[in-house]
């Protein structure tokens, strides 16, 4: 089903058909879902599921091969003392660390853990199309199986939607069938829920395989109402087109409580079909250790401490 032909007027017409969002109502729905109490067996399931959905991330200027190798080993075997802990969903690094990550994962038993590269002049997206193209091509050549691109927020906010659309379409073309494309909306800069809804549909229509909340470099990032809006968008898009698009919240999900709230949002919005790493990922770094500590508490019956997880 063709929702838009990519021209400015066609995109604008399409986006105008979308229902408005009431901010207070959306906040209230997210807040109500946050009161779900997930305990005992459902908590065990939720923790392991969350672990398997993590895109374990390091995106710092100071990243070194050593740092990247450390998180890759962690990704394969999050808890050295417990082989029943599932491996994470993916590794997420800058372009020039992709090969190091891929090699390390392959060497430590992580062949089926994909490497995602951030691309298109992440995090700002302020560069020419040529630079964004080269950024993406390099990542894929180095072995990235997932591309996390950023949209041009300046173009979105100034009403140049065709530019936003065409860039996504273009990068998707480069990805082809070699890599899946996550489109980062940077919801903190879009601010309104109406913008988040519109940007979600625009990205999906242009070819996104996943829509992602944030770069993690801007607050607010993956707030519950924003994730709610995006889950509603993929749910509605599926009803319109038969295509399931994934959602990735990133930034601000620091502990087990936060992660479980995300799973509840998925469960009661898009539905249980989205509760797997193919359709839901969590971009995080510190979260993994908190999940492990909570897992240990349930396993051992007492609270664990930071000495019992690895600091990478």
């Amino acid at each position, binding site marked *: 089903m063709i929702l838009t032909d990519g021209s400015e007027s066609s995109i604008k017409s399409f986006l105008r058909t979308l*229902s408005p*969002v*009431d901010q207070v109502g*959306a906040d209230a729905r997210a807040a109500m879902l946050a009161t*779900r*109490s*997930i305990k005992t067996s459902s908590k065990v399931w939720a923790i392991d599921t969350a672990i398997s959905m993590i895109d374990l991330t390091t995106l710092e200027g100071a990243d070194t091969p050593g740092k990247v190798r450390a998180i890759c080993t962690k990704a394969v075997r999050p808890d050295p003392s417990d082989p029943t802990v599932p491996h994470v969903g993916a590794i997420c690094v800058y372009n020039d660390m992709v090969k190091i990550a891929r090699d390390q994962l392959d060497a430590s038993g992580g062949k089926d853990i994909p490497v995602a590269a951030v691309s298109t002049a992440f995090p700002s997206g302020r560069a020419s199309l040529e630079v964004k193209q080269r950024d993406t091509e390099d990542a894929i050549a180095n072995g990235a199986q997932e591309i996390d691109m950023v949209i041009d927020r300046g173009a979105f906010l100034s009403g140049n939607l065709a530019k936003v659309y065409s860039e996504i379409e273009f990068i998707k073309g480069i990805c082809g069938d070699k890599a899946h494309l996550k489109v980062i909306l940077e919801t903190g800069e879009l601010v309104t829920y109406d913008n988040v809804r519109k940007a979600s549909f625009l990205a999906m229509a242009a070819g996104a395989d996943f829509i992602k909340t944030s770069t993690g470099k801007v607050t607010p990032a993956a707030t519950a109402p924003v994730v709610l809006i995006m889950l509603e968008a993929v749910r509605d898009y599926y009803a319109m087109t038969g295509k399931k698009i994934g959602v990735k919240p990133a930034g601000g999900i620091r502990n087990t409580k936060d992660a479980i709230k995300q799973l509840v949002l998925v469960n*009661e919005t898009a539905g249980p079909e989205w509760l797997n790493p193919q359709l839901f990922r969590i971009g995080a770094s510190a979260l993994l250790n908190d999940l492990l500590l909570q897992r240990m508490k349930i396993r051992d019956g007492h609270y664990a401490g930071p000495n019992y997880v690895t600091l990478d």
Partner: protein
Amino acid sequence: MTFEYAPAPESTAVVKLKPEYGLFINGKFVPAKDGKTFATINPANEQHLAKVAYASESDVNKAVAAANEAYKKIWSKMPAAERGKYLYRIARILQERAREFAVLESMDNGKPIRETRDVDIPLAAAHFFYHAGWADKLEHAGMGSNPKPHGVVGQIIPWNFPLLMLSWKIAPALATGNTVVLKPAETTPLTALLFAEVCQQAGLPAGVVNIVTGDGKTGSLIVNHKDIQKIAFTGSTAVGKGIARAIAGTKKAATLELGGKGANIVFEDAPIDETVEGIINGIFFNQGHVCCAGSRLLVQENIQEELLEKLKRRMALIRLGDPLDKNTDLGAINSAAQLAKIRELVGSGDAEGAERWSPACDLPAKGFWYPPTFFTGVTQANRIAREEIFGPVLSVISFRTPQEAIEKANNTPFGLSAGIWTDKGSRILWTAKHLKAGVIWANTFNKFDPASPFGGYKESGWGREGGRHGLAAYLKGVH
């Protein structure tokens, strides 16, 4: 991959149930003069909770006498600021004992712990806090420079929000300088009796608040008592009319909060996902046991199909079950009698040709339960479009133009509440202007606040509760 939520029960250990409760008269718990009692049960499992005293005529007389003494000797002489401080104390103690009240309310009423914890109890405390601040500011309230209370007021409250309705009645009554004899509903006396303990903890002078448990007869005794000049009643329209008849020709004043058949109007440009939440909240919150429930969905015909699809999908997520489970959305129907009423009216809907839909729902074996339900193909003449069901049952009616929406919304003897869903501000204000309803929610529903006056037009009652306007009921000669 399904995400099952394991049971997450709230512990009842925080509640110390007594086997038997007395009447709260003149600051003490006393048995009924003739020793009569009746039982209250947990409607979610039909288990016996406690015995409470049954107040007969001499008990009611004692309570009124205590309230009168307290008024004359203490309360009317107390500086207003000090009166206010008692109310602040009560508010703070309710906050301190919030969990205890929330669990007890859920056990006695059948409503989910999430609602008692997040709505009922906090609002009740807020009501006392808000009204505490009015006690010494009445001369600024636009009710005259020296407004005077009635004296002893008689208050009769329903079972749907027991503690909250108690706070709606007692807080303004005390703030304005009255003393109180209050009768909680027959099936939900326990939080009122626990409230009596709070009055003791707050050091409230004996006789200022009196709680008499009983049934309709006890209520009549209060209404007809010669020393009660002011009655406040929340309950059914039928009983409300009975009270109005009883006081006709006397000098007694009454405020009445009665039934409703609220229209929730959805225009084509409504924010659809939030609207679905608003519809759900409007009729399934508190099991639909809400006088201001949005029990009629008036949907613009051109979006009816889309809206109902989304509504069905959302209703399938409603979790019905143990009210003390923190994940329960829909609790038990308050009593066998109420369940019978719901079934009777639903039966009429089936018989009159409307089409019924509920999601698949496992009802527990014991207790009183009804699944979330809506009817389509409803016309204005159907009983389910006109009579208050007071349960989780929604009647869906369509309209084509805003004028038609107004006509259908207003075409009822009730006039308590309405909802408006649209993206257009001017349409919200136009629709609100034309609706004959005392409380109108736009792009939201079932929001309550001590500062916001609540009450109905037409047969939904007399007077308002809450806000500046709600003080009027408790001051002599003020409207």
